[in-house]
């Protein structure tokens, strides 16, 4: 079985987010970029399935400008076999990403597609579900455990009240939650080897997909700052403030 993993290049989760002075967007100039944490988990899961003999090949795909090749190389260093970049000027919105991925799925016929549940920049949490809809496949979103049993995937999902397990007919789409696994670090020799692994570049036109804008970004602002509070020096003082000043207890 082949596994396709879709990975996104995003701001490093430790980097400070600054809004541009003209409020047009977040300023990403000279900001550290990285593999989206949920995508890192997706890559790790695919590699583990390969190591367990469930998967035969792990293909990673990323959509965006040439810079995304950096994250594809990271995924290759972690153990993916080959990579595909779909070259676009900017990061397209989820429906466009899903349409492009649907074409890759059509061509590659993976048994499983693993995506992150959410990009930590746009916080959309949409792409995997949209891809599942476009390909007519079942989905196991927010996965904290994935088992492949014959022609089925059994996925444990993190839901509001606890955990829920579903059984999906393969081929299926899975999106990762944080506790699915702990990603490994790439070793230096693997980083060197990854440079020689195949990386193919395609365009939306090659795939016959026309990108459309559905959601227009009008403005980006910094959130309202909270008033700095005060320090209290004892439990008594705290209880007093909560009772008599804030009046919340």
């Amino acid at each position, binding site marked *: 079985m082949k596994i396709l993993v879709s990975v996104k290049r995003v701001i490093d989760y430790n980097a400070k987010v600054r809004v541009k002075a003209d409020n047009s967007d977040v300023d990403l100039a000279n900001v550290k970029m990285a593999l989206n944490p949920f995508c890192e988990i997706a890559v790790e899961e695919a590699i583990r399935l390969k190591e367990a003999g469930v998967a035969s090949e792990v293909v990673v795909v990323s959509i965006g400008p040439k810079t995304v090749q950096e994250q594809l190389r990271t995924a290759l260093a972690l153990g993916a076999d080959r990579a595909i970049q779909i070259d676009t000027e900017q990061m397209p919105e989820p429906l466009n990403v899903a349409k492009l991925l649907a074409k890759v799925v059509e061509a590659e016929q993976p048994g499983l597609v693993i995506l992150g549940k959410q990009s930590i920049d746009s916080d959309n949490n949409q792409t995997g579900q949209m891809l599942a809809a476009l390909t007519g496949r079942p989905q196991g979103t*927010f996965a904290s455990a994935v088992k492949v049993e014959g022609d089925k995937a059994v996925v444990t999902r993190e839901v509001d009240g606890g955990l*829920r397990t579903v*059984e999906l007919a393969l081929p*299926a789409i899975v999106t990762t939650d944080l506790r699915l696994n702990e990603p490994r670090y790439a070793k230096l020799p693997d980083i060197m080897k990854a440079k020689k692994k195949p990386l193919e570049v395609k365009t939306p036109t090659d795939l016959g997909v026309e990108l459309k804008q559905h959601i*227009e970004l009008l403005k980006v602002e910094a959130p309202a700052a909270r008033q700095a509070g005060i320090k209290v020096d004892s439990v008594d003082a705290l209880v007093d403030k909560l009772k008599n000043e804030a009046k919340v207890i």
Partner: protein
Amino acid sequence: MSILLIAEHNNQTLNPTTLSAVTAASQIGGDITLLVAGSNCQAVSDEAAKVAGVSKVLLADAPAYAHSLAENLSLLVKELASDYSHVLAPAGTTAKDFMPRVAALLDVGQVSEIIAVESADTFKRPIYAGNAIATVRSADAIKVITVRASAFDKAVAEGGSASIEPLSQVCEAGTSAFVGEEMVKSERPELTAARVIVSGGRGMGNGDNFALLEKVADKLGAAVGASRAAVDAGFVSNDMQVGQTGKIVAPELYIAVGISGAIQHLAGMKESKVIVAINKDEEAPIFQVADYGLVADLFQVLPELAEKL
């Protein structure tokens, strides 16, 4: 304008996040139809019909919808959607699962987790874990939107008298099946509905020590939450996680104990009305958002606090 709002429920009662989504819907304007899809969920539709501002309730009662499988729900909502200008749902894990699927079936974009309605097509939503607020406009004929419940007041649950219309069609994709669930049972209020939340982080040391937090929570009638580090370390279950990738809460009082205040945690609680931080490190970033900070050892503070409340 006409709005289809998909209710969140457990087949027995309406989740209060639905009431917040009704408020968002009424800010958009137009007729509001509530869809209750589930199994043996008649009681939910009765409750839904009483919500102020709702003009009609659609009841889709079938085993296919018992466990909110996205494959089935999205087919149903897609069939209904063409009669509406907006499709809304409160952004719990159920809607996060099926709504993007609906959007893709309709060939439209989705606006995730709105926190404000600017006009019928323009909304505000947090991005970058709440470190920036985006204003976005949807160009699609049908607007698919999830609503961050903590950002909207709840609509009045009583007083309405909407008609209830049962739906006969059953949509079943046949590609997925429910196997089982482990739901956490608790006598405490749910995190997203609680007036007071007491949360513990890695500083709690282990799961047993959460008993110290529980004693404080008991005194306040509070829900208990946690940071991801506390969940990852196995102190408490995953459904207690507050943050960018956990639950988003905005109670009247949030008490963070042994939590450093990483941006991913703040993303889930910084809209709380009053924030208290208890941490032994006076440099902890949580103090930058706290109204009242107490620099102290939590193992001394918690028993004393439970006693003095």
